[in-house]
Structure formats: structure tokens, C-alpha cells
């Protein structure tokens, strides 16, 4: 097999690229920008008008830079040795999660979940659960994960994750780490950047393991730069074990959120059942809400 990249790529792109943007997209941009002021630099206007002003402005900028440098250095000297990473407040709940049960783009899903039983046969091991009340949705269904979201609490999640393996805070491999449930529990307990409750025995769907609550410590070094809040660190990751992997999932926790993780043993691998509370103070309430779903889990081994 060979590929003439130029030719084949262009042919594929001709097929894969949508021809047109949706009409509402341009309308939305124009509506947003209609009343939005542009960034204008008064300094640049002045520079264009006068060489004298330009020289003056240059001097002022240089003075300001020197002043900023002096103030910055003195501030750093005052704080050196005692400074902690800046802590941001817990983030507001996301406003961009649809609650209409529509599948994410290019995904298949179950959509809005009414009261009833649902089976996820792509998951390993296949799992059945019962939704006891309206108000949940499943916007994606594939690849190593089951995701259920309550419609009235955007950001809260119930996740089932297969084949979990420990990751460092920066989401790199943990050299030599075993990928069993007990190894993952020990790994989490040993993390200095996390607050982890003592493990308690748990059993869900006839699988046994341990349960811990996990939050990130306020003084944790920031492991990941692109999270809803900071500090933010990676916990675990998994990849499709097939010869040609088709999915990867990664689990993170950030300041202000909390996870209740059931770490279950499945034939020497770790299966996670994760209750994520966007607002850590709501973890117990969310856990109580999802308990009937957890009680209904049946893993078909």
C-alpha cells in the first residue's frame, strides 16, 4: 500500500470537508460583533501623528517597563519561598452542555433517558443499569466509557471507565506500575497532590473493590494547564487494547470539583465507576442521587 499524500489528501478533503458553514454561524458572529468595540491603541494613533510624540512615548514605555521590572522583582523577593500556586475560585458550571439529549457531533448515543433499563454492550464487561427517574441523558456512547449526565446539573457526571491505568499529575505514564485495582488505589493514596479518603470496601454489580473520594489539594503543583480550574491533575487513563486502538480516555480532577471513585477489579484490570461533582460541596448529594443507578448495575461477564 502506498499513498500519494498530495493527491489522496486533497481527494479525501474534498469528501470530508463540509462545503458550507451553517447560516446561523455567520449571523451569530455578526450579531456578537455589532456592538462589540474594537481594540484601538491610542498610543499607536499618536505615534502615527507625530515623531516627537513617538519619541516621548518610547521613553514613557521604557520607564514603565523599568518600573514594572523593579516592582516585580521586589514583589518576588518579598514572596519568594512562601508563595503558593494561585488558587482560582471553583468554576461556574458549564453553560454549553446541551440538555436536549442530542448526541455529540459524530457520535452515537442513547439521548434522553427515561425511566427504564439500558444496556451498554460495547463496554467491557457489558453492563446494564436502570434509570429510576427522568432527567438523565447519554450524549455519547462508545469506546471504553459510559457517560450519564443529569440534565439539571451541568458538569456533574456518572462515568463508567474500563481498563484504568495510573497516570502522573502531568498525565504521563507511571513507569512499572501495575494496572490492577489495588495498585491504582495505592497509587492514588500515595499522591501528595491529592486529598484521598481512606479506601472502603465496595461492591457494585457483583464486582468488588475499593471506594475513595478524591479532591486536588489547594497547594498541589498544577499538572495540566488547560482545565476549568486550577490546580488540575491527571489521575488515570486507558487506551483501547486492540491492535489498532480506536479510543483513549483520560480522567482528571481540578480545584473545586470532587470525585467519588469505585475502583473495581475485573480480571486483573481496574474498572472505575466515578461520580464527579462539579461543585465538591455537592458530592454527597450527587452520590445519593446516583446510588439507585449504582445499585442497579449488572456487569455481564
Amino acid at each position, binding site marked *: 500500500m*502506498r499513498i500519494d499524500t498530495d493527491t489522496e489528501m486533497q481527494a479525501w478533503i474534498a469528501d470530508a470537508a463540509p462545503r*458550507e458553514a451553517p447560516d446561523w454561524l455567520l449571523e451569530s458572529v455578526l450579531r456578537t460583533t455589532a456592538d462589540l468595540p474594537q481594540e484601538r491603541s491610542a498610543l499607536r494613533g499618536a505615534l502615527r501623528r507625530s515623531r516627537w510624540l513617538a519619541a516621548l512615548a518610547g521613553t514613557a514605555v521604557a520607564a514603565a517597563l523599568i518600573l514594572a521590572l523593579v516592582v516585580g522583582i521586589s514583589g518576588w523577593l518579598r514572596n519568594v519561598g512562601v508563595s503558593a500556586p494561585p488558587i482560582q475560585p471553583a468554576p461556574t458550571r458549564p453553560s454549553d452542555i446541551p440538555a436536549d439529549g442530542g448526541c455529540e457531533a459524530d457520535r452515537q448515543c442513547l439521548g434522553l433517558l427515561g425511566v427504564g433499563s439500558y444496556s451498554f454492550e460495547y463496554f467491557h464487561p457489558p453492563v446494564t443499569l436502570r434509570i429510576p427517574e427522568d432527567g438523565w441523558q447519554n450524549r455519547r456512547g*462508545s469506546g471504553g466509557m459510559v457517560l450519564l449526565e443529569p440534565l439539571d446539573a451541568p458538569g456533574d457526571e456518572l462515568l463508567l471507565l474500563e481498563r484504568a491505568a495510573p497516570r502522573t499529575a502531568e498525565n504521563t505514564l507511571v513507569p512499572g506500575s501495575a494496572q490492577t485495582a489495588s495498585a491504582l488505589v495505592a497509587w492514588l493514596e500515595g499522591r501528595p497532590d491529592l486529598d484521598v479518603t481512606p479506601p472502603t470496601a465496595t461492591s457494585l454489580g457483583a464486582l468488588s473493590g475499593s471506594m475513595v473520594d478524591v479532591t486536588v489539594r489547594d497547594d498541589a503543583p498544577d499538572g495540566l494547564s488547560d482545565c476549568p480550574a486550577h490546580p488540575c491533575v491527571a489521575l488515570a487513563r486507558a487506551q483501547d487494547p486492540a491492535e489498532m486502538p480506536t479510543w483513549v*480516555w483520560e480522567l482528571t480532577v481540578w480545584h473545586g470539583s470532587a470525585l467519588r471513585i469505585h475502583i473495581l477489579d475485573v480480571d486483573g484490570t481496574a474498572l472505575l465507576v466515578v461520580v464527579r461533582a462539579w461543585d465538591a460541596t455537592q458530592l454527597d448529594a450527587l452520590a445519593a442521587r446516583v446510588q439507585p443507578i449504582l445499585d442497579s448495575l449488572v456487569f455481564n461477564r
Partner: protein
Amino acid sequence: VELAMQGDHEAFSALAAASVDRLYSAATLILRDRSSADDAVQDALVRAWVGLPRLRDPGRFEAWLHRLLVNACYDIARTRSRRRAEVQLLPAHEPSVGDPSTGVVDREAIDRAFRRLSVEHRTALVLRHYIGLSVPEIARAMSVPVGTGKSRLHHAEQRLRTAIEADSRAGGRSQPRDRWSA
């Protein structure tokens, strides 16, 4: 462009209308997700309007817009991947890898291989093969030195070839068979 730089919103509307389809197509290819592409294009065009007065050379508007789009795609890709436990996967396809005897690669095989690339590599390929930029232009759009842009494009093409060849050897058996019943 000069009118838009001076605050003429109608002039900006014309620029945006002329660009939006191309930007949307590029963002969809880079992010492989239409709703994320919506966000990226909106972000890039709104930033363009706000920042237009600071554009030094009106002749560089197109290149600048590409850079804004690439930055928006990167931001969205990062946010998307960190918001929660995130699955990245290929869509369910029937196995289809083309006919090795002809040397012609099936487009679905390219699609599967393309999805396996990093967002940076996808960006380099889209800028080259969809937008039609030169290597220096790609480097500017990706805010990297020319040498880095050249190697990124080279590696992207190399990885694409490797992934397609691996896909071919696997006979398309990597496709997920996600099924459920309610």
C-alpha cells in the same frame, strides 16, 4: 480590510461572509467535530473584529485570520480534552481499506488515520492540503519557526502514511462495534 480596521462593521461583514465557509471547513477537519468547529470559527472571527485595528498590514489579513483560527482550534481541543474523562475515538465504519493491488488508498482509511493524528499534525495537513499554504505560511499560522513548521508537516504526512499502512495490515478490524439496546 482597511474599512473594517477603521470600524466599518459592514466591511467586516463582507470579509466574514467571504471567509466563514472556508474557516468552518478547516476547523471541522482539524477538530473532527462540527460543534467544536462552530465555536472555533466564532471565536476566530470575533477576535478578528476586535483586533483588526491592531493589524499592521491589511495585506496580511488572510494569514492573520488563519492564525486566529488555528489558535482557536488549539484552545478548544485542549478544553475539550480536559473537561472530563474524554474519549477520542473513530466513528463506526465498515472495514474498508482500499485495494492493495492498485495502490489506491481508500478514503475511509485516510479518514481513520487522520483522526489518529494529533491536533497539531491535523492542523499542518489541513493548512497545506486544504487551505493550500506554503511551509512558511503554515509556520506563521501555527506560530512556530519555519523549520518547526516544515518538520511538523513532514511528520504529519509520515504518520498519516504509517497509520494508513497499519490500518491496511489490520484489515480494518480496529473498527469499534458499539451497539446497545434500551
